[in-house]
């Protein structure tokens, strides 16, 4: 009996010690980790849009976040979009637009929220819930960024996550206003090193560049050797303009699968196919509603 008590006591103390060490490290490092993640995402956004430190984002450019929610009320589901209001550089508040599953407009509610708080999911959810009233339950689904320059749309930035060969693959996709691909970055994945992990290499992910929406809608993976000239262009071995020309020349081709990693290649292509199709449909509906209802969005 005495031994059991000793064991329990010592094991408890050990666990508490371990917890203390881990907890302290977590508290000390969490802020730096969050800042790193945010900085990385920002860097990816800049590079996808073709900007860098030497070539900063111009004043005339605006980036507006649109948040998609799922709203349920008495067993009925509607889709809600939280959109900013007002022109470029103005703070016009936010509006929550609800659209039912048949793409018809339901209603529009103004949401009291500041531009700093909209990025924090907790604050945002609370504000939306308060505006809608307590009889509806909301669930945040995803956010999209609409990029404009001089009031004209230039790009959409999408976050996506889909199953890969091992775990989920998280990507960020930049689409042009006509929904053709203008950039792709693999944010997170745990594919096999040397095989599926090659999806983050330029010679794979740059294959999606310039592919038009018509092609993306039906994109497939082919198991064929990649032409050498195309590889050189994707790897950036020739100058930028020539590489872009070469990519445009191959824009109606399917995706060349990675050697030994057909499943990972296919996962990325199908994921992008599904993401783009759904996004194009949803955004066309949202656009139509915004136009019909004369909602003053900045994009």
């Amino acid at each position, binding site marked *: 009996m005495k031994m059991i008590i000793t064991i329990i006591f010592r094991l408890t103390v050990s666990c508490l010690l371990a917890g203390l060490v881990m907890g302290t490290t*977590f508290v000390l490092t969490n802020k730096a*980790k969050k800042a790193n993640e945010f900085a990385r995402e920002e860097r990816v956004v800049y590079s996808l849009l073709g900007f860098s430190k030497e070539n900063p984002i111009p004043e005339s450019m605006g980036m507006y976040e649109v948040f998609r929610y799922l709203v349920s009320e008495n067993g009925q589901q509607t889709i809600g979009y939280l959109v900013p209001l007002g022109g470029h550089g103005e703070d016009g508040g936010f509006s929550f637009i609800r659209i039912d599953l048949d793409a018809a407009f339901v209603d529009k509610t103004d949401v009291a929220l500041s531009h700093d708080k909209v990025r924090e999911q907790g604050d945002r959810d609370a504000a939306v819930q308060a505006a809608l009233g307590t009889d509806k339950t909301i669930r945040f689904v995803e956010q999209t960024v609409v990029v404009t320059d001089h009031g004209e749309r230039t790009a959409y930035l999408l976050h996506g996550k889909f199953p890969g060969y091992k775990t989920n693959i998280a990507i960020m996709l930049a689409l042009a206003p006509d929904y053709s691909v203008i950039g792709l970055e693999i944010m997170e994945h745990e594919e096999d090193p040397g095989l599926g992990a090659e999806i983050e290499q330029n010679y794979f992910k740059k294959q999606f560049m310039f592919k038009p929406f018509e092609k993306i809608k039906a994109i497939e993976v082919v198991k064929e050797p990649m032409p050498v000239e195309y590889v050189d262009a994707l790897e950036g071995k020739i100058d930028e303009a020539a590489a872009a020309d070469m990519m445009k020349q191959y824009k109606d081709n399917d995706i060349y699968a990675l050697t030994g990693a057909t499943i990972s290649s296919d996962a990325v292509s199908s994921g992008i196919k599904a993401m783009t199709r759904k996004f194009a449909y949803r955004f066309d509906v949202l656009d139509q509603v915004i136009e019909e209802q004369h909602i003053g969005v900045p994009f």
Partner: protein
Amino acid sequence: MATEKTHGQLVADGILKENPIFKLALSMCPAVGISTTVMNGIMLGIAVLMVQVLSSVTISALKDFIHPRIRIPTYTLTIATWVTVIDLSLAAYFPAAYIKMGIFVKIIVAFAIITMRLEMFACKESVPASFWDGLGMGLGFLIGMVVLGAVRELLGSGALLGYDVLGFKPLLFFILPSAGFFVVGLMMGFFNWIEEFYKARKRG
């Protein structure tokens, strides 16, 4: 029952006589799964080195407090704690390295070599001796991983440290996990052969 070996001998034994991969044949799964390139080998090796040294020192310092009946759970707890600490610190302060090392660091919790060293050495010996033993074992693992990685990267993708050396890919087979066992087996044989060779020369 303190060890009679000097600190230098402890380190040398970890690298040669008791090399974790080629002599003790411990932690084969992760070693075989990950040693596809030299860089992967270096990354995992450094991570194991750090966890091994930290855990050995901790267990050695706390050896009188750990009840013998529950020593294995305590070892696992210690290793898991250090792995978490290293994982969090890397993610926060070395984000560029973490992108590459992240998945390797987490699997170290299940490494047999670390538990085995704690059980065989650190729970009986003094803190400095455990430090040097941990360092030797970690270095032995690191070197083993680099050698394995070099052979497999060269034969599998025709490159070393990511630089194209051969200009062609001799055998894709070598970067698949199963090929790791072949390479480990051949390397073990090679090490034993060298040992026999030296023994024979000493005698004759």
